[in-house]
């Protein structure tokens, strides 16, 4: 770092970029404490909007829906994702490359296409839109992320640990559940966190696959935002940003300690 004491244009540029990224977020957070309904002038500090948020039944209901959908999505995405990663990593099958491309499609397309595709599909089989349809949609776009993360961990695995288990008399299934799955632990934790966040934040796919009873938070926020500014949304957004930040700090910290462990 020879440039440390010099004026560094790259550094200024990066700070500018961060300012651009954070200035709107700071304003949003600041107004969540502003004692005025209009989001225009600063009138004084208040916790009122957080209090109102707590009592805003439609929003709280959507929050419960979102948390429930994200939990179920995470659970099934992990089961399906870990199983298929093991299939891609461990076994050879003539259609494997094609299958992998198929399951990765949601990563490569604009979300709106998955949304309208599933809407048309559920309508065609006369499946009512609601919690189940949203959860199915969420699992579909979360799976590729789980598979990418788990495959990355598997690629660093020593194949002899499975061979050892098999030589000692374990069946392939026992070897998987007793030896491979514990090895995958960190990858499972990061995929769970990422799946949970993706599901909680998703708007576009949910917009097309949700029913009136299963409104999630982003759907409700979109509806309220179209009508106008509302400091309750600022309060809610602040909580969202805080939770996202904490989850990320946890992932970073987790990665850091894991790296240190492998160094020793």
């Amino acid at each position, binding site marked *: 770092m020879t440039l440390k004491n010099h004026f560094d244009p*790259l550094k200024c*540029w*990066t700070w500018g*970029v*961060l300012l*651009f*990224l*954070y*200035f*709107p*977020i700071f304003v*949003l957070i600041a*107004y969540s404490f502003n004692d005025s309904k209009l*989001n*225009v002038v600063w009138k004084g500090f208040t916790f009122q909007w957080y209090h109102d948020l707590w009592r805003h039944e439609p929003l709280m209901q959507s929050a419960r829906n979102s948390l429930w959908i994200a939990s179920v999505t995470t659970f099934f995405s992990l089961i*399906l994702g870990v199983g*298929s990663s*093991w*299939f891609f990593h*461990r076994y050879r*099958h003539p259609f*494997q490359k094609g*299958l992998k491309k*198929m*399951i990765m*499609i*949601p990563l*490569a*397309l*604009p979300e*709106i*296409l*998955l949304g*309208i*595709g*599933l*809407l*048309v*599909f559920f309508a*065609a089989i006369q499946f009512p839109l609601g919690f189940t349809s949203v959860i199915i*949609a969420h699992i*579909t776009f979360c*799976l590729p992320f789980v598979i990418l993360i788990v495959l990355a961990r598997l690629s660093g695995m020593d194949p002899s640990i499975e061979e050892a288990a098999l030589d000692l008399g374990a069946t*392939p299934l026992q070897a998987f559940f007793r030896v491979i799955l514990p090895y995958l632990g960190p990858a499972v934790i990061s995929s769970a966190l990422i799946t949970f966040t993706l599901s909680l934040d998703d*708007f*576009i796919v949910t917009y*097309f696959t949700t029913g009136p009873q299963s409104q999630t938070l982003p759907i409700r*926020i*979109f509806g309220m*935002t179209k009508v106008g500014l509302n400091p309750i*949304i600022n309060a809610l*957004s602040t909580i*969202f*940003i805080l939770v*996202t*930040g904490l*989850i*990320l*700090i946890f992932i*970073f910290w987790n990665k850091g300690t894991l790296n240190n462990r492998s160094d020793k």
Partner: protein
Amino acid sequence: MNLSSSKRHWIVLFWGLPMTLWGALFIIAPMALLLGYSFCERDALGQVIWSFTWENYQRVFDPVYLNVFIRSFLFACITTFVCLMVGYPAAYFIARLPKEVRNLYLLLVMIPFWTSFLIRTYAWITLLKSEGVLNAILGALPFSTSLDLLYTPMAVLIGLIYTFLPFMILPIYSCAEKLDLSLVEAGSDLGANPFWNFIHVILPLTWPGIGAGILFVFVPTFGMFAVVDLLGGSQTPLIGNVIQNQFLQARNWPFGSALGVILLVMFFALYAMTHDEEVDER
């Protein structure tokens, strides 16, 4: 492995079948249905009638929709270009930092990346509206001016760039982080000035990150409708808005499907092209 082949067969099925069924049902079948519906007609009530017609595709060439396509393409290109120009230097800078500081910067980029774009778009409404924060700041300047930005194409572009900038920075960062500094040093030792060193050494080495970043920004921008709805009002619909409208308000599913299929084909073509390039490079 001393497993009999029939037993092995069952195990492959056990791990592979659920995923295959899932993909066939919830990825392939929906896409196939879109393709099928795009050739259908609809009755007065908006019900889809199975038939075969090219009408929906002909309608895409109606100047109204052609304009929307061109505008979407233009907006996606501008957004991608600005994100690349703004994001590349920052990504490169972060990647070259010492490890402890680097993670802090990375975290700062990742928080907006993982925060719902709805929330971040909402933040811009506060800033851009005529009695909003931006005009308050501008009004305080000596040459007091004011801008009426909200519900203009400019606001949409700002929103799109703001939403997708982290999607450009992160892939370029992860590519630049692996960059071998000795190659850059070799370049300057051999007499290249910083500009040519960048063109001949750094740029080619970070090319995969740039490619990934362009895809991560261009693809979602093209189908985005929510940012446009919130910041652009109804003045400048993009293709995502038209599709959304055909499915949920106008209830013309066959026409909406035709628009979707065109996007689908476009993106598959895009991937086929970029994939070929990768093979060529090797």
